[in-house]
């Protein structure tokens, strides 16, 4: 099976003599659903950041989607990011743009015209039950609704990999359910690889998944 993520002796840190993740080796198959858990400050988000190139490996090797993340060039990183969908705990929606345009962002970046991106966005807004809010702006929506918009945006360009950082951290039950259903749907129907960083794995998850736990800078698989 193809590997979407390969880490070998991966060390991550923000400063030179600091270690957040130490010599981690793991791999994630294409189409897998993976949870990464750990206590606050354990390095879960740092690991996720390294997967979309926000921080570079301090040591070791990291490959994402066949792209080497060590000393990656801006153009290669942009190329990789155009094939990844990211969901953040704080949504990261563009406040000055409508919900519809926010969902359209990855498609705009990939150069799709409105004829193609328009129906795709409408379909996704339907999936996240926000079609009636398309013309509104993010500050006009609740936290749960904003996260559903962020979820629709992450799926808009049919990415090979979705990275989600505490996607349901502050959400109500209904919005959490919509988010998990969408992630499960993308994984089972589109074979999208999903990596979710979370405190707690939801009990409602129906798909088979892999579970990694981070503790004291070490990553180990939980069977």
């Amino acid at each position: 099976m193809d590997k979407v993520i390969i880490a070998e002796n991966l060390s991550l840190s923000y400063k030179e003599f600091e270690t957040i993740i130490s010599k981690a080796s793991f791999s994630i198959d294409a189409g897998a659903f993976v949870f990464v858990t750990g206590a606050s400050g354990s390095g879960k988000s740092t690991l996720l950041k390294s997967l979309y190139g926000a921080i570079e490996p301090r040591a070791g090797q990291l490959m994402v989607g066949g792209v080497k993340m060590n000393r990656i060039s801006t153009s290669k990183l942009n190329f990789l990011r155009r094939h990844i969908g990211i969901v953040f705990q704080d949504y990261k929606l563009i406040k000055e743009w409508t919900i519809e345009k926010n969902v359209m962002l990855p498609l705009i970046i990939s150069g799709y015209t409105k004829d193609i991106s328009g129906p795709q966005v409408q379909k996704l807004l339907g999936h996240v039950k926000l079609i009636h809010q398309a013309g509104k702006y993010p500050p006009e929506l609740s936290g749960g609704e904003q996260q559903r918009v962020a979820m629709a945006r992450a799926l808009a360009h049919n990415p090979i990999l979705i990275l989600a950082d505490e996607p349901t951290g502050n959400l109500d039950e209904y919005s959490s359910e919509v988010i998990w259903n969408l992630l499960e749907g993308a994984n089972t129907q589109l074979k999208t690889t999903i990596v979710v960083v979370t405190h707690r794995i939801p009990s409602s998850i129906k798909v088979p998944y892999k579970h990694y736990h981070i503790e004291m800078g070490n990553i180990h698989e939980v069977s």
Partner: protein
Amino acid sequence: MKSLKNHISLIIALFTVLFSVQIYVAVDRTIGAYENRLKNDYSIVVVSNKVLNPHDFKAMDSIIERSEPIATDQVLKRLQGEMTKKNLDLLKLTLPKFYRVYLSRFPTPEEIQKLQKKLEKNPGIERVEGYAQTHDTVYKLMLLFKDVVQIFSIAIAAVTSLLILKEMRLWQFQHADRMSIMALFGAPVWLRSAVLFRLAIVDAIIATVVLCLAFFLIDQYGWMDLLLRTVGISIQLFDFIHDGFRSLLIALGVSIILTLTIVIGSEEEE
């Protein structure tokens, strides 16, 4: 309101650059027109003991445009009462020939001296009067004025460019969230910065329109034209097609180059 304030700051800064450039152009035109007027009024007086025709003068130096003999009749008429006809005829025969030599352009003082020496080398030419000293003062004054305006324009352009850079930095901070979100989804730097370029282009167009409007009002009011006419100069202060187009190009050039500086600078910081 805040956004409008930012736009106005950039529009004013760009307008100042365009206005200083246009003032320099207008001064250059005024000096050009004045030079032309001086050139028409200016001539060299040549005293020769033999008859010289315009072709002879033109052959001496390419700067010579035309020449005309200075009639001596008036001087001789004045002497009619004091001298006998025989002496007067004799004087007429021995009197040298006077010529007024006009030049094709307004010469520098060095050119006058050079020309003077060149003419004096010609056999037959006894004396050349270039009025170099008078000419020198006027010319130097004009050059000084032109230089002062040029330095002033450059200083204004430099200071306002710094202000524009600062303004664009503010824009960048204002749009930093949007730009960083776009970067997370792989937007290339030009797409992330498209909003900055769009703002810069719109403001460049507005600044050019304001400049055209300002010169239209100056033209309508007519005081500048009146001022120039008092010194015998008539020029077009602002040509709406030619100058308007050049101003638009300058405004677009300045704003795009400064936006690029900001964008490239921020990319390096990343």
